[in-house]
């Protein structure tokens, strides 16, 4: 397969996944502000959301103070924000268009249709629209895109690069989400291991879980009250949780192995190491390092892996 084609496929999948992750986080934030909470907490919530995508600087330069409606508009439909849902869907479609011959016709039509509908849905702003419905729609289109990919495409290189893009982006997102949400919690509200979480923290952590479709998973796995440590364990180490770091990096590693060639040894080694450390990691060790330090380091390595993939496969 052409390196350029692989590059477009990789980014097409990443942008689709990014649009979904943004929609998930916004969805939970919009629901959270429906609960009674202090104005400062609301502001922190919106700021945290921008923080996950490293967009506080961009936002402040353009819009000044945090204003919920403006943040929502900035994250959903601002074409000047490359991470807005609209920008991601456009980028996914442009990448797909560049390689429409390499993907199944139904995959192309799904991505194209998503973009055409997004333009229509978001053309006149969010006024008078139910944001929850839009987020639901974005998630739905992302599910459809992944489903039609696995349901119609030959499992060849094209498929592997799409999957690598999806899971690398998802790993990046989960790590950022967890990092920011641990920070957002006031220090005195942080529960110690095993103790019951105060009520306002319950909403904080159940929001985090819901944004990665993890609330029901948590209940099934632990059948117990919500503690931050278990949330971290679930989202980092749990191999059967579809949005955990362990699951994402296992997928990245498996698909990378399927496209390996003699010059890609170092990237494969790093991917394997990262995968193994997550498969055999323990929460106690992570907590001993400090969650923030651990996640910062992990994000660097995910980034580094992405650069290695680019170097070895996409830019030959």
């Amino acid at each position, binding site marked *: *397969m*052409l*390196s*350029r*084609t*692989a590059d477009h496929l990789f980014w097409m999948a990443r942008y689709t996944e990014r649009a979904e992750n943004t929609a998930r986080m916004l969805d939970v934030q919009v629901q959270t502000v429906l609960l009674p909470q202090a104005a400062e907490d609301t502001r922190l919530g919106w700021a945290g959301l921008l923080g996950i995508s490293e967009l506080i600087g961009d936002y402040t330069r353009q819009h000044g103070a945090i204003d919920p409606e403006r943040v929502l508009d900035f994250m959903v439909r601002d074409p000047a924000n490359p991470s807005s849902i609209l920008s991601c869907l456009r980028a996914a479609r*442009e990448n797909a*268009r*560049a*390689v*429409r*011959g*390499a993907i199944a*016709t139904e995959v*192309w*039509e799904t991505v*194209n*249709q998503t973009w*055409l509908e997004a333009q229509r849905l978001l053309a006149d702003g969010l006024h008078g629209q139910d944001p929850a419905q839009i987020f639901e729609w974005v998630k739905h289109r992302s599910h459809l895109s992944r489903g039609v990919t696995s349901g119609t495409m030959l499992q060849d*290189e094209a498929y592997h*690069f799409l999957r690598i893009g999806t899971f690398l982006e998802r790993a990046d997102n989960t790590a950022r989400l967890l990092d920011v949400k641990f920070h957002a919690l006031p220090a005195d509200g942080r529960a110690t291991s095993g103790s019951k979480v105060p009520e306002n923290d319950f909403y904080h952590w159940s929001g985090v879980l819901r944004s990665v479709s993890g609330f029901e998973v948590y209940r099934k796995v632990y059948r117990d009250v919500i503690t931050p440590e278990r949330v971290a364990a679930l989202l980092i180490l749990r191999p059967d949780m579809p949005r955990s770091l362990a699951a994402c990096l296992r997928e990245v590693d498996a698909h990378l192995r399927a*496209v390996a*060639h003699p*010059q890609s040894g170092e990237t494969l080694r790093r991917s394997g190491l990262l995968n193994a450390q997550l498969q055999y990691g323990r929460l106690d060790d992570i907590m001993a390092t400090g969650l923030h330090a651990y996640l910062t380091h992990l994000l660097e390595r995910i980034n580094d892996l992405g650069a290695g993939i680019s170097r070895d*496969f*996409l830019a*030959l």
Partner: protein
Amino acid sequence: MRFYDEMTAADGSLRPHYLPYDRWLRQQPPDVMQAKREEAELIFRRVGITFAVYGDEAGTERLIPFDLIPRIIPAGEWAHLEAGLKQRVSALNRFIHDVYHQQEILRAGIVPEDMVLGNSQFRAEMMGVNLPHQVYAHIAGIDIVRAENPAGQGEYYVLEDNLRVPSGVSYMLENRRMMMRLFPELFSLYPIAPVAHYPDALLEKLRDCAPPGVNDPTVVVLTPGMYNSAYFEHAFLAQQMGVELVEGQDLFVKDDFVYMRTTQGPQRVDVIYRRIDDDFLDPQVFRADSALGCAGLMRAYRAGNVNLANAIGTGIADDKSLYPYVPKMIEFYLGEKPLLANVPTHLCREPESLAYVLAHLPELVVKEVHGAGGYGMLVGPAASRDQIAAFADKLRANPQHYIAQPTLALSTCPTYVDAGIAPRHIDLRPFVLSGKSVSIVPGGLTRVALTESSLVVNSSQGGGTKDTWVLER
């Protein structure tokens, strides 16, 4: 001016091959047909069958209007067209080979030497280069129009030979797919020859023409990229043939062989179906500022290590100044009488012709010799006095750049317009494929001028398309 109508004869009676369609159409409620039109547009958008118009903002995508009423060609007419097209393309390929080798037709004095050797489309780099099966124009899009001949019958004329990078075949295929989806019942009313095997036939011809000794050739489609007006077609054909769609940046030449950059390292390329003009193919030989091509490609090509479809230098045979000589080429190379007629053509480089053309501009169509796509032409009957005066100045300044033809009474076909159904002018572009042998998929692209009384059918000038049905019996 009288126009030949494809559906209705001069006495108002329906032509027999349109009777079943007419009966069917009368049974369709108007709102159903309107709904079908809207459905077609939605599907074309979703599938992304769009083209870009030059001069518009970069990346603007538009749909080519699709008309629901098919153009129907009876079996007997098609048999005549098919034979005539094969004959014509065979002679044109022989001509190009001759021009770049022995030049017998020039020595015989049949085509003036200076018109070939002094032509900007003549590529001296191609002299003596031997190509597999001596095929130059692997894909030819021959523009056919129909007009009433002096005997009052509809006759097919060849208007233009497109031998460089003819486009439009994807619309032939997609229009058929659309008709089958919208009106499946029509396909049981008529024995319509299928066209969906075109990509297979194309791949076969491309593989036929691989460099000698290559048993399992790697074929690619070379596109200028996604902002080209015909990008959809490039991607579509690559996908339908199951070959890579490459851009110039994906290719490189090493030791006179062409390779593409893949995720598994360099892979040799044997046949390039290129959708880029000669000028942009190799910055070392042609335009140095081209970022679309591949440096060294011409060297590999001349060494016989890669084949290009179409060949470099085919423009010498579809140049409008050489068009009047094609019937003579057919007689010279094949020893046969031409089956398809040319449109009478005045070469403005000849002083008598120029004088005639200048005196009759309001009746004539004047075209640039090297132009394509309906750009830079004058349609006398539709032009204002000022436009005609301005064009006359251009003609006097550079007469050798122009040819003129009588305004053809292009045939009409019923077409959906805002006010209902009305006759609109059409043409036809069948695609002729050459490899070890010459073949044609029974069909073509029918273009329709949607503006009332307009004779310009080019999509870049607001034309639409129709499905083209060739009947099997």
